[in-house]
């Protein structure tokens, strides 16, 4: 039986009426004179006439009026009541008048027929059960499909249909119904004898309820998701004054380890999702920007010293301000659909799109400064000179101008603070962005343009400049069946940097090292040497890098029939990078034979992808089937060429290759990678309570030889939303949300070079033979290697307590990667040192991840929320058969220990008579080599996470984010024996051995090889492993939304002033420049403070 409301237009008014009718019994009096004369006419028609004459609105359900059949009525000049009485005389209907509205309903039938009626008090006629039509709408009046409607006290519920309707049959008219829907507050409502009820659900204030997550090929409500996906939205990203989105993720996502490699703008990041899976390289996650895979390794062919050996991050081309959300996919349920590329996790980046509404113009701009946070206190001039003299005295050596220019040649009264001089500058940040967006119901657009400029802390005029343009358009046909969207973004990045990072000089240069400039302001070479160069020579070696990136993505979909949609997703990405590093004569120590040298690097990345898909959604009772089938065709082409040219006659022509007399090709490569797949998922959700998700992929990669190209991957994910169970709702009402989930499945890794299976020759690299070119075998070919397989298991509980004021997630994972793709070590007799193969070694990553979000205070004017996350990873090499046969591995790894271990000498102390470091001679043969390095120590992060506190008071918002890392690190110093060379040492090295019997932390100052050897062994000993843990005030953001009264004066819809700070404070016991950078002498992440404004019109 179906109900129809005869006048859908009046639904709104009806709601009001019904609600009022429930409380009021008002008899309306009318003076209207009504005349009706009809016989055997449908009641509906008569009502229409009545409505016309009386001016009253009459509400009825089609159903009951139909049942009444045709009637005859004859009245003249009567009131509305009389007319209605006459009309309904012989029917089963009654009426009620409220103001100018008439509601028609069924008369209460006498108690008889059913034996189900409960015994009632005498004189009170027990109610007859009725059918109730419930329409569930959201606050905008749009129907909600899939909302649950059930009678209070009963577990059985029904779901609303596509129009938001559900019929509750045979219900007690006095009963109360409960309506619930994910993302909305539950609503209780009394039936109160009504046949139709319209319920408007109010959205829950808690965001997590509404969170829809992107799983790449499909989206899912976070609450029903059986997988593990963390989502970071624009709200959090925009608080970070950074130019690379990865910098904004540090510490915010459980299971995601991000380590910034350098503070030089554009530098790289080490990114690991749930640990290191592979023994060989290739542990980077898969990055997908708007549905199109992007490169995970740098485009750069010649990084040189500029980024201190760390290649620039490929994600520099993504403007953080363009990002709507970043999803991090971590478990098998989420990753299996990425098949052979999912083993290391996936990072999905989705950029902003237009939203329906008034055209909005948003202007956002900030400016600020950055500086190195910390300084290692070096010895002052006095201490330094004393150290050197003591070192010579200890070793009975006489200082000469060759070994001690600092004592004999350089001015011993002059001192320079190298930290201040070389990296003590202020970097400036300028960022501006303008966005125009809007659209109506069917078409939305967004256009944005941004500019970012960041200078460096080095002296000189260096900067990293970026221009981003981003556009999106989306259309849905008026019948809602055909959808199209196009996203395009272009970024151009120009980087000018000195030829090398100057940080190492600040840790090395003697305080009295020669002056940088001569008396007339030119670069000075006096008293510098070829091995001890004037650091500012690097400023005369400009490095220029241009990267242009274009990304496009087209998505179209057509609903053939309701529930069945075909889609096509296609994308194209192109990234081009060119770089030039100049080394003119003027920048080199004046020495015979120096020449102008330029290094050129050009590289190109192109990628296209086409993914046809079919999606089918089917409602079967309380269950919903969601099936997706698709396929992928993708091609990536990478090209690179690096050249070094020398002999330019003029410095001015150094960017012109043809002006060079000699040219050397460093590398010239071309690789093509093709990938195709079939993938699918079957999701079944029953009653919004039980979810099972099967995903799978069969894919083929050109990185494998014929017959080994295809592999199968799959996963099962299940979730049980136990908080929807009646017994929880009844017995433990404080649990507002509870989910248990588990997933198991496989994903693969194909991050090896292309063509590894190929038996081929390439041009000889060692020049020619008598002018004849050569061809050299590239590799030993193994056509038989295949995927590295990662088996992933996860179990988790998610809890919401007290209306989700407390949200708690706990996940445990166990990932095992086997069939490790490594270079299998070979005897040199084979002609090569290794061959690409699957090795039966297994690496295990297990861990616990905890997230806790609490809304501590919620009042009208003041809100305080906290969120905390911690990840405790554990990495272990489970198996490595016959490791002892492969010295390259046996010297690095130990079965049962993590991959990131280091085998070290055992430091036994300082010899009280010689004053030198001493170590355990394990094999007692008097010499020290790898056989004595038997102490196994873990180097890496033991746990990490973050704590965010957000305070909101009226228009003010304050966010404080702390990142914490518990880790062991190397170093930092000493690398060399203190006093051995004309290099400075940190002040703490003064705690050294001086005379027999001294107890000191560091060995005596010395210049002899005994001292340098002992120092070198110290750096390779367990004493060199220190605590590198830190807590960092990673981000602080304060913003103020201007009051509405002010806004109207400037005709703005919204205006916000903000101050953002990054890396403001660091608490650590680590003695180096920065615990995140560790022992690497690289520029640490800067402390950045910016202020800005956002205006929306």
């Amino acid at each position, binding site marked *: 039986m179906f109900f129809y409301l005869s006048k859908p237009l009046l639904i709104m008014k009806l709601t009001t009426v019904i609600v009022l009718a429930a409380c009021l019994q008002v008899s309306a009096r009318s003076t209207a004179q009504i005349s009706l004369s009809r016989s055997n006419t449908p009641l509906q028609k008569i009502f229409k006439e009545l409505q016309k004459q009386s001016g009253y609105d009459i509400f009825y359900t089609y159903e009951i009026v139909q049942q009444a059949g045709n009637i005859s009525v004859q009245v003249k000049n009567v009131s509305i009541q009389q007319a209605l009485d006459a009309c309904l005389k012989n029917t089963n209907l009654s009426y009620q008048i409220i103001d100018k509205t008439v509601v028609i309903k069924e008369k209460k039938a006498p108690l008889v027929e059913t034996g189900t009626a409960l015994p009632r008090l005498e004189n009170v006629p027990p109610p007859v059960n009725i059918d109730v039509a419930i329409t569930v709408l959201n606050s905008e009046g749009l129907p909600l499909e899939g909302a649950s409607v059930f009678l209070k006290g009963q577990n059985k519920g029904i779901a609303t249909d596509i129009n938001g309707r559900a019929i509750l049959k045979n219900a007690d008219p006095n009963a109360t119904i409960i309506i619930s829907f994910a993302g909305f507050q539950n609503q209780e409502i009394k039936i109160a004898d009504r046949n139709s009820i319209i319920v408007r659900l109010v959205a829950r204030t808690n965001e997590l309820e509404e969170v829809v997550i992107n799983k790449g090929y499909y989206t899912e409500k976070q609450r029903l998701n059986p997988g593990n996906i963390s989502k970071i939205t624009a709200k959090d990203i925009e608080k970070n004054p950074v130019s690379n989105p990865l910098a904004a993720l540090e510490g915010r996502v459980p299971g995601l380890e991000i380590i910034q490699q350098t503070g030089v703008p554009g530098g790289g990041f080490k990114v690991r999702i749930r640990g290191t899976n592979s023994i060989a390289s290739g542990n980077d996650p898969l990055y997908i920007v708007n549905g199109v895979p992007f490169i995970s390794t740098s485009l750069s062919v010649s990084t040189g010293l500029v980024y201190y050996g760390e290649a620039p991050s490929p994600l520099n081309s993504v403007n953080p301000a363009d990002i709507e959300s970043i999803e991090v996919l971590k478990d098998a349920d989420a990753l299996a659909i990425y098949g052979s590329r999912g083993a290391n996790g996936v990072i999905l980046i989705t950029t902003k799109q237009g939203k329906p509404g008034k055209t909005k113009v948003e202007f956002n701009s900030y400016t600020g400064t950055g500086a190195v946070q910390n300084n290692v206190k070096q010895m002052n001039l006095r201490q330094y000179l004393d150290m050197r003299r003591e070192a010579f005295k200890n070793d009975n050596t006489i200082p000469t101008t060759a070994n001690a220019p600092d004592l004999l040649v350089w001015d011993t009264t002059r001192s320079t603070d190298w930290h201040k001089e070389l990296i003590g500058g202020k970097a400036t940040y300028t960022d501006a962005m303008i966005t125009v967006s809007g659209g109506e119901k069917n078409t939305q657009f967004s256009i944005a343009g941004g500019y970012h400029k960041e200078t460096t802390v080095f002296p000189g005029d260096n900067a990293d400049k970026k221009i981003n343009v981003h556009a999106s358009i989306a259309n849905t046909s008026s019948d809602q069946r055909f959808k199209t969207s196009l996203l395009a973004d272009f970024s151009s990045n120009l980087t000018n940097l000195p030829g090398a990072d100057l940080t190492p000089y600040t840790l090395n240069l003697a305080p009295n090292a020669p002056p940088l400039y001569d008396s007339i302001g030119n670069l000075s070479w006096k008293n510098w040497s070829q091995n001890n160069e004037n650091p500012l020579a690097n400023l005369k070696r400009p490095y220029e890098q241009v990267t242009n990136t274009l990304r496009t993505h087209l998505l179209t979909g057509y609903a*053939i*029939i309701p529930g*069945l949609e*075909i889609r096509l997703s296609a994308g194209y990405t192109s990234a081009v990078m060119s770089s030039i590093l100049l080394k003119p004569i003027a920048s080199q120590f004046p020495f015979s034979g120096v020449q102008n040298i330029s290094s050129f690097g050009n590289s190109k990345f192109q990628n296209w992808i086409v993914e*046809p898909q*079919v999606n*089918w959604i089917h409602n079967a009772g309380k269950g919903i089937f969601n099936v997706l*089938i698709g*396929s992928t*065709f993708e091609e990536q082409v990478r090209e690179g060429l690096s050249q070094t040219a020398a002999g330019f006659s003029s410095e001015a022509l150094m960017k012109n290759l043809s002006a060079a007399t000699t040219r050397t090709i460093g590398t*010239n*490569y*071309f*690789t*093509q*990678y*093709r*990938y*195709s*797949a*079939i993938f699918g998922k079957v999701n079944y959700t029953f009653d919004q309570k039980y979810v099972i998700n099967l995903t799978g992929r069969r894919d*083929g*990669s*050109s990185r494998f030889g*014929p017959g080994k*190209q*295809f592999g199968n991957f799959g996963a099962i994910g299940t979730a049980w939303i136990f908080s929807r169970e009646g017994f929880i709702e009844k017995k433990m009402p404080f649990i507002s949300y509870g989910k248990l989930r588990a997933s198991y499945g496989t994903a693969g890794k194909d991050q090896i070079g292309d*063509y590894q299976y*190929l*038996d*081929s*020759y*390439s041009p*000889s690299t*060692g*020049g*020619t*033979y*008598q002018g*004849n*070119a*050569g*061809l*050299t*075998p*590239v590799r*030993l070919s193994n056509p038989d290697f295949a995927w590295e397989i990662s088996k992933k298991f996860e179990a988790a509980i998610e809890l919401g307590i007290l209306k989700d004021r407390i949200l708690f997630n706990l996940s445990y994972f166990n990932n095992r990667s086997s069939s490790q793709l490594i270079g299998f070590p*070979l*005897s*040199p*007799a*084979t*002609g*090569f*040192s290794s*061959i690409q193969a699957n090795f039966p070694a297994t690496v295990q990553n297990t861990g616990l991840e905890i997230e806790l979000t609490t809304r501590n205070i919620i009042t009208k004017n003041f809100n305080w929320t906290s969120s905390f996350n911690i990840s405790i990873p554990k990495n272990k090499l489970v198996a490595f058969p016959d490791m002892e046969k492969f010295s390259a591995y046996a010297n690095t790894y130990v079965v049962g220990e993590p991959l990131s271990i280091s085998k070290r000498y055992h430091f036994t102390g300082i010899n009280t008579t010689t004053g030198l470091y001493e170590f355990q001679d394990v094999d007692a043969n008097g010499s020290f080599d790898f056989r004595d390095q038997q102490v196994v120590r873990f180097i890496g992060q033991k746990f990490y996470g973050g704590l965010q506190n957000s305070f909101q008071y009226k228009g003010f918002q304050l966010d404080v984010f702390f990142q914490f890392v518990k880790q062991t690190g190397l170093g930092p110093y000493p690398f060399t024996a203190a006093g051995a060379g004309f290099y400075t040492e940190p002040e703490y090295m003064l705690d050294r051995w001086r005379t027999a019997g001294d107890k000191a932390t560091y060995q005596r100052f010395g210049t002899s*090889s005994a001292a*340098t*050897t002992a120092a*070198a062994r110290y750096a390779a000993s367990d004493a060199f492993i220190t605590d590198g843990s830190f807590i960092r005030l990673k981000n602080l953001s304060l913003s103020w939304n201007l009051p509405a009264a002010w806004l109207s004066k400037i005709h703005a819809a919204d205006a916000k002033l903000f101050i953002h700070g990054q890396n403001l404070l660091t608490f650590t016991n680590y003695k180096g420049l920065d615990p995140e950078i560790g022992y690497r002498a690289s520029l640490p992440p800067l402390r950045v403070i910016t202020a800005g404004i956002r205006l929306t019109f």
Partner: protein
Amino acid sequence: MIPLHKIKFICLVLSVVTIFSSCKKFVEIDPPRTELITPTVFATDETAKAAMNDVYIQMRNSFGFAGGGFVGISCLASLSADESVAYFQGDPASTQDYKEFSDNSLTPDNTWVLGLWTDLYNCIYKANAVLEGLTTSTGISAGTKKQLTGEAKFIRAFCHFYLTNLWGDVLLITTTDYRVNNTMPRSPKAQVYQQIIADLKDAQNLLPDDYSFSANARVRVNKSVATALLARAYLYTEDWVNAEMQASTLIN
């Protein structure tokens, strides 16, 4: 009757399946344009010669065993023979390996010892690769095939000669198959010489008398070179008769 939407659905599934069946071909890619696959290398005279050139390039490379550099056999052997002295400057660790040569106190970890071993076997691999490539090739002219086979056999003998003189019993490598070579045991010195002599005899037969092959530049091995080494091999194996005979041929 099947409802229309079901038919549509089936059609879709079928079309999707058709698309998938073409996946396999899609992932079969051409070799990169920066490389030549092995059969192509041995398809023409020019490329086959280039493959042989690479062996000479490696040998004369300053890091090669025969390159005359600091890690070549001449320098290292002269340190051992006290013809040269390792002069230390700077970091002692970096000169440690040279010192072991001049002090006659070689350790198994010595980098240059491994370097010699690796470089020699790498040349042998390349020579074997040329020999195997030429055997299966059909597109190369008979003259070139003869010349290159002779050169490759000479190089193989030359490398084995130095190997066995440095280490005694060594691995005798006559194939490029890593599965065989990786587990190859040492062969007795006599057996190595047997192979050296066989290779050199072949080279003698295959190589021309003059330098016509290298445009009269004395940059590639010819019959006389093979004869000279053969004489030496006989001499070292104390086969005086043959040694004298080969030497005499050369002198006369």
